[in-house]
């Protein structure tokens, strides 16, 4: 077994994240503006190239904040939305407290409602990027392009300057490098023996929501070098025989580690995911030109989120095709499909996704609501699933 974790580099990520709120506060005092955003369809490159500081606001797993948020939203709102509203109501989150404006991409309509709630109840300025539902039609593509132009002009007003083509190109290249580095970490994790726990993988990815992006890239490069070195020096490794699990479904936000912990505790090993806080925004995103049109096309063409409906045949659904591809590419033996309470797109599509994959891989559907009371039932189901995968593997061998 390869040595677990490259502690020195991971510690650097943790130190950097811990120091970041103070850095943001200092930067804001000097006149910098922080754009806190929800949803991976917000093009960070644009924010970054305008000299604004992007921070992805994203928190889950806190029942107290869910309850707090429900007072402003509703107990029938998606649990992630409730907690997000709760972050603003609570007033203690360092990322929220260091945000000057919130940007949202309305892939999901509940995120639009979130923007309205935080604007009204907490007086937080918001900028909205509408994401069309008909991405696969010409008018949907045009519409997204126009929306992006409008979104950019609102950010330009905030930044006090126009978008510069060269600055945009630089930002795009930076983000491409970040994505490349993160994909490489996934490839390491998919090997017969993974150097990092999945919780650490997610920590590394989520650190990128907060850190200065150039600094973040340097940390990623450092981590990769250490992983490669470790891989070279630890030649005789034993294969990690734990059942290989792929995570899919609703957002798993920082703080919401119950499922990951449970899978690893019950003897499973996560090898990949198609989450919006994981691999999906990093996949199949290719900018052909460094312009707003190029960004619109790239974000449109990448693996779509389930919250963008696709009305053609499931056989041509790129989200499903990507999931099937990941199962094969990462040699997953089981898929744990997780949906949050009242997360409509992912919970409604669970059955269809299961049917699509049923001939390829074992599938477990989990529905959660950030409630500690769910731990017991969840443990039972995950344990049984891991055992099932193990038995299926034995049967094949």
């Amino acid at each position, binding site marked *: 077994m390869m040595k677990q974790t490259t502690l020195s580099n991971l510690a650097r990520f943790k130190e950097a994240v811990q120091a970041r709120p103070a850095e943001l506060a200092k930067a804001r005092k000097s006149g910098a503006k922080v754009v806190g955003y929800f949803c991976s369809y917000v093009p960070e490159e644009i924010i970054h190239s305008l000299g604004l500081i992007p921070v992805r606001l994203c928190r889950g797993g806190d029942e107290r904040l869910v309850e707090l948020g429900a007072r402003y939203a509703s107990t029938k709102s998606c649990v992630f939305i409730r907690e997000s509203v709760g972050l603003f109501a609570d007033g203690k989150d360092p990322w929220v407290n260091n945000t000057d404006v919130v940007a949202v991409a309305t892939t999901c*309509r509940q995120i639009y409602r979130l923007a*309205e*709630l935080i604007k009204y109840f907490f007086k937080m300025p918001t900028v909205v990027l*509408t994401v069309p539902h008909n991405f696969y039609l010409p008018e949907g593509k*045009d519409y997204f392009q126009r*929306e992006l132009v409008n979104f950019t002009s609102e950010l330009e007003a905030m930044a006090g300057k126009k978008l510069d083509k060269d600055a945009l190109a630089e930002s795009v290249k930076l983000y491409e490098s970040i994505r490349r580095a993160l994909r490489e970490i996934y490839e390491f994790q998919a090997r017969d023996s993974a150097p990092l726990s999945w919780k650490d993988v997610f920590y590394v990815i989520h650190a990128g929501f907060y850190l200065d992006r150039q600094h973040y890239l340097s940390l990623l490069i450092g981590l990769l070098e250490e992983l490669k070195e470790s891989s070279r020096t630890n030649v005789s490794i034993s294969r990690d025989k734990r059942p290989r699990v792929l995570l899919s479904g609703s957002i798993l936000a920082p703080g919401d580690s119950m499922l990951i912990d449970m899978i690893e505790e019950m003897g499973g090993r996560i090898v990949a995911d198609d989450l919006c806080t994981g691999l999906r925004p990093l996949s199949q995103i290719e900018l052909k030109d460094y312009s707003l049109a190029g960004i619109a096309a790239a974000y449109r063409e990448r693996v779509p989120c389930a919250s963008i*409906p696709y009305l*053609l045949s499931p056989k041509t659904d790129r989200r499903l095709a990507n999931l099937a591809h990941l199962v094969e590419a990462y040699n997953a033996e089981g898929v744990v499909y997780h949906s949050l309470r009242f997360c*409509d797109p992912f919970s*409604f599509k669970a059955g269809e996704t299961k049917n699509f994959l049923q001939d390829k891989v074992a599938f477990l559907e989990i529905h959660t609501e950030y409630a500690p009371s769910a731990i017991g039932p969840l443990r039972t189901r995950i344990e049984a699933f891991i055992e099932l995968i193990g038995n299926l593997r034995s049967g094949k061998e």
Partner: protein
Amino acid sequence: MSSIKMSFKDGMLNYPEELKEAFLESGGLKLMDGTYVSAEEIWDFMTKEAPRRFPFLYTVVPHAVFFYRIYHYVEFLWPIKYRYLLLSLHDRIVKARAKGTPLVFAQGGQTLEPYYVAKAIAIRPFLVQLFANCSVDGLSFKDLSLRELRNIEEGKRELSPDVCNIIGAHNLIKRGATPVDLVAPYALVRCSDMCYVVESHRSSARNTPIFLVDFPTNARPDQEWPVEYVAKSIRGLVKKVVEVGGKAPSDEDWKATIRLFNRGRQAARNFVWTWWGARRIPTYGDDLLGITRMANDMTADPVAVVQILEEANKELKERVDKNIKGIEIAEKPVRLFACGTCFYPPTERIEKAGGAIVGYDDWWGRILVDVEEEGDPYVNLAKASLRFSYEQSTEERAHWTAGQAKKCGARGMINQYNWGCSLQAASARMVNEIVKKEIGIPSLDLEMESLGRPELLEQYINRVESFIEMLS
């Protein structure tokens, strides 16, 4: 016409013989297929055939909650014709489909001109359910409720327990119980579930063709591109309707259809304004709701509906001029404004408790917006749809709601939403606060588990009765 008591025999209400002459004098209905149904035919249907085939409507069931129920008194003649259209919906659609007219699913909150101009019939979730209910003769209210509950349950099992009760209509389509040829609603901002429920048809055994007219969130009136986008989407919709058996519309078809629908909207507006201006509340709240519903969903025949709406205005004006009060309405009821989508407050119980629903924001918001008759119809429809109150930001919608609640003299507001309706539930507190700040009236938040589930009615009524008592 003053109030006439319904006849009552063997537990069933029926229209009394003494009403017949006046009804026959009111004339029949011209239908959109060019045929004419005489008043005599309507009367025979409503007094003989319908009670036999659809006893659920005629049986006295104290806890029944469906707005087109028959009351103990008849105060107007037009509701008889409206109920005729509702109860004959199944037969009319079967007949139309036999002649090649496609049936297309639309949703609440949107315009219907694009479907009718392409010679299709558009039906909303409520009418999908009604068609299925009327496809079986002799159902009691209990039978009806159980069928609806089973249907919703089946839909939820297939999709998710979190889905809004709209799943009932979609499940009927998937099962073929309502023979929809195309599922093609607008993906309005008011609803988050609809897109994914529509999407789920692609994996169903029946695989009904699907289409979404996409709607932009956060569209501003000074922005051209949201209008262009919606207009293109509507163009795609009409093309799709033609593909499933409709007819490509000419410019004249467009003008005539838009004009007809505008006529209906104007008639509904006039009715509501006259009602609001009355010194005493002239009729049941369900009649007010019926008018606004008719002008929105057209009950599968816009020609007949517009005629009924225009007749209703004449009847109402006469009643208001004579200062006639609705017979079962209190002399000074607590006036309530109903806010929220996809629900019908149980007005009979509210009225018995001394209240009266005097306005509805949902259907009303669309009736206030006419579509321009000249120019590009797709652009005009897009512009009109983007002006609907529910398509604005929640803050803007709330300001509008406050204005309407003030106009109708409401002293309180009921803000209601269904299980699984995450978008409306999340906007409730904001709307209530803004309305309170602007016009000083309190709101009552209510969640309905299902569209009219009777066993939850008592909990609902407890809350509403207390609210009415508090306000009185």
